[in-house]
């Protein structure tokens, strides 16, 4: 019983971790290449979810909605880049934190303005509804498996793109030494626009994928943004590989910790105290994990060499 529960929780953790990775990938590249702290990355996830909600209400099909939402998320990211972010590159981190904080306020209110404050729900696509038996007597929702599959595919594509294409080479080079890349005649500004738009699209994709299983509401990007930052800081800023591994670790620590912290504590505490302490500790686990990682490795697990 406990082993199957652990397996289900591990799958949930994997799914959560992959979603985190999709968000963190764009964040870490933007950060690595331009040294730009974009707190508004989380609202791009929210915008992705809203776009898919709007388009699926309009077209009646999740597939079409997703197809329409991706380019829209890309366009939206580029719009933000042109309007706000490009004016902040040569500013210090503090200014970037504040200006993008303003973007968050605006967009959280903006989606309320357009879609209302009530949460929207997106139906799970017909094709992927229901559950399948992944082990004897163990049902798991198909849609969550689809998220895992989509996350893995995108991660693999991203890996190939970053490691085996010319643009990817430039991005990696930019992440380790932007000044040098720029001195070699690469238009770092344009490179960044590509990275930025792509990152916005990935975050939007993550939002779109989770829209059917979460409620789509204003502010939904805020907390996941913090988690994405935790991921890239643990992974080492600018490192895609670090972001991937850290995202999976965080996903597992969070999901498995929530269901097993009380059980583990029961070994040392009496049941009532254990379940109470467990519930208290579970949401803090990832932050404790992060503090511990940074204590031993102040620049993350896979720091990009500079």
């Amino acid at each position: 019983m406990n082993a199957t529960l652990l397996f289900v929780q591990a799958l949930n953790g994997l799914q959560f971790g992959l979603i985190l990775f999709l968000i963190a990938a764009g964040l870490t590249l933007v950060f690595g290449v331009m040294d730009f702290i974009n707190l508004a990355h989380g609202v791009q996830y929210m915008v992705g979810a809203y776009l898919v909600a709007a388009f699926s209400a309009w077209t009646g099909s999740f597939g079409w909605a997703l197809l329409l939402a991706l380019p829209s998320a890309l366009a939206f990211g580029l719009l933000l880049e042109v309007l706000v972010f490009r004016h902040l590159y040569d500013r210090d981190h503090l200014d970037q934190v504040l200006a993008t904080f303003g973007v968050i306020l605006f967009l959280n209110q903006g989606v309320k303005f357009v879609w209302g404050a009530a949460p929207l729900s997106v139906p799970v696509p017909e094709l992927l509804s229901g559950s399948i038996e992944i082990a004897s007597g163990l049902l798991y929702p198909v849609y969550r498996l689809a998220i895992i599959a989509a996350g893995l595919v995108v991660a693999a594509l991203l890996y190939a793109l970053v490691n085996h294409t010319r643009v990817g080479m430039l991005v990696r080079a930019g992440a380790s030494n932007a000044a040098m890349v720029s001195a070699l005649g690469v238009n770092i500004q344009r490179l960044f626009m590509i990275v930025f738009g792509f990152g916005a699209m990935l975050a939007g994709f993550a939002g779109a994928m989770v829209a059917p299983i979460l409620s789509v509401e204003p502010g939904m990007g805020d907390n996941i943004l913090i988690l994405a930052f935790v991921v890239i800081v643990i992974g080492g800023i600018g490192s895609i590989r670090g972001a991937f591994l850290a995202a999976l670790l965080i996903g597992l620590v969070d999901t498995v910790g929530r269901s097993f912290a009380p059980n583990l504590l029961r070994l040392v505490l009496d049941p009532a105290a254990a379940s109470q302490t467990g519930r208290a500790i579970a949401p803090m686990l990832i932050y404790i994990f992060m503090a511990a990682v940074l204590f031993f490795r102040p620049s993350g697990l896979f720091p990009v060499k500079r």
Partner: protein
Amino acid sequence: MTELAETHAAPMPSLRPRLEIVPILLFAAFAAAPLLAMASGAEGYVLSLLTRVMIFGIAAMALDLILGYGALVSFGHAAFLGIGGYAVGILASHGIEDALVQVPVALAASALFALVTGAISLRTKGVYFIMITLAFGQMLYFLATSLAAYGGDDGMTLSSRSLLAGSSILESDFAFYWVCLLCLLGAYAFSRSAVASRFGRVLRGTRENAVRMEAIGFQPFRFQLMAYVISGMLAGLAGCLLANQAEFVSPAFMTWQRSGELIFMVVLGGLGSLHGAIVGAAAFLLLEEFLPELLHGLSFFLSEEARAHLAENWKMVFGPLLILIVLFARGGIMGLLRRPRHG
């Protein structure tokens, strides 16, 4: 972080104490406000708004001590507001309602939290520092949401304000206002002297060049940690006052958005001038308070329905306003005042 040090150098205070016009005007305004409030007829509203301004002034000033003078961007300073608030709330729920006990406990708890988390955070630099302070803030936030005995997510309502040496004088809004003003003055005087002392100069020196400070025989870490602890304690004091003002404590005291707002207040006022942080807090809170009405008033050319809609969504104006301030008003409000006029 190095860029931070270069772009916002705080003016070197002269060694002789000199009278400065802005803080004097500021405190005179706070002192005169209750009289004006009585005359205005809406004294309860004016007093509670200004009390809030002063409390956040203390918190912003606390943050400015490390942000403006030490270039340490703490993104988890709202945690200390929470510690102060919960110290009041938790002690009160156990029957200890006297501020003379609550405040020292809150200060000790803030100092301890700052000492432990500061010692860990200061091992990291730059963005990692921003993120690790954020992580500690989040830890405390989630801890508070899980304190089922003390309200959990919903927070806890205080049955009354704290007693002061056994008397319930703070129940009067006027008395509470004066206590907050005294705290603000005290915190300001204390911070001024800390900043002007050798300690403050070492801190500024570390902001400019930590390696050099180390080379001439100081241990930057100790000074930064000390500053972090002092800053945490002042913010903890603000938390005690905030809980008393609202007569309510909840995890919402320490969301990361609140930490962001504190940073914003400091930058809005102008980094590295203590009274600037108070001005920034005032500007932020007053803007938040009056922007909806201002929008409603300014959009007289629209239909009544559209005006109400606009006022309701005032954050859609507030957000871009913050961005514009960051982009165009460098040095904050104090920077604008200091800047000589062109032409």
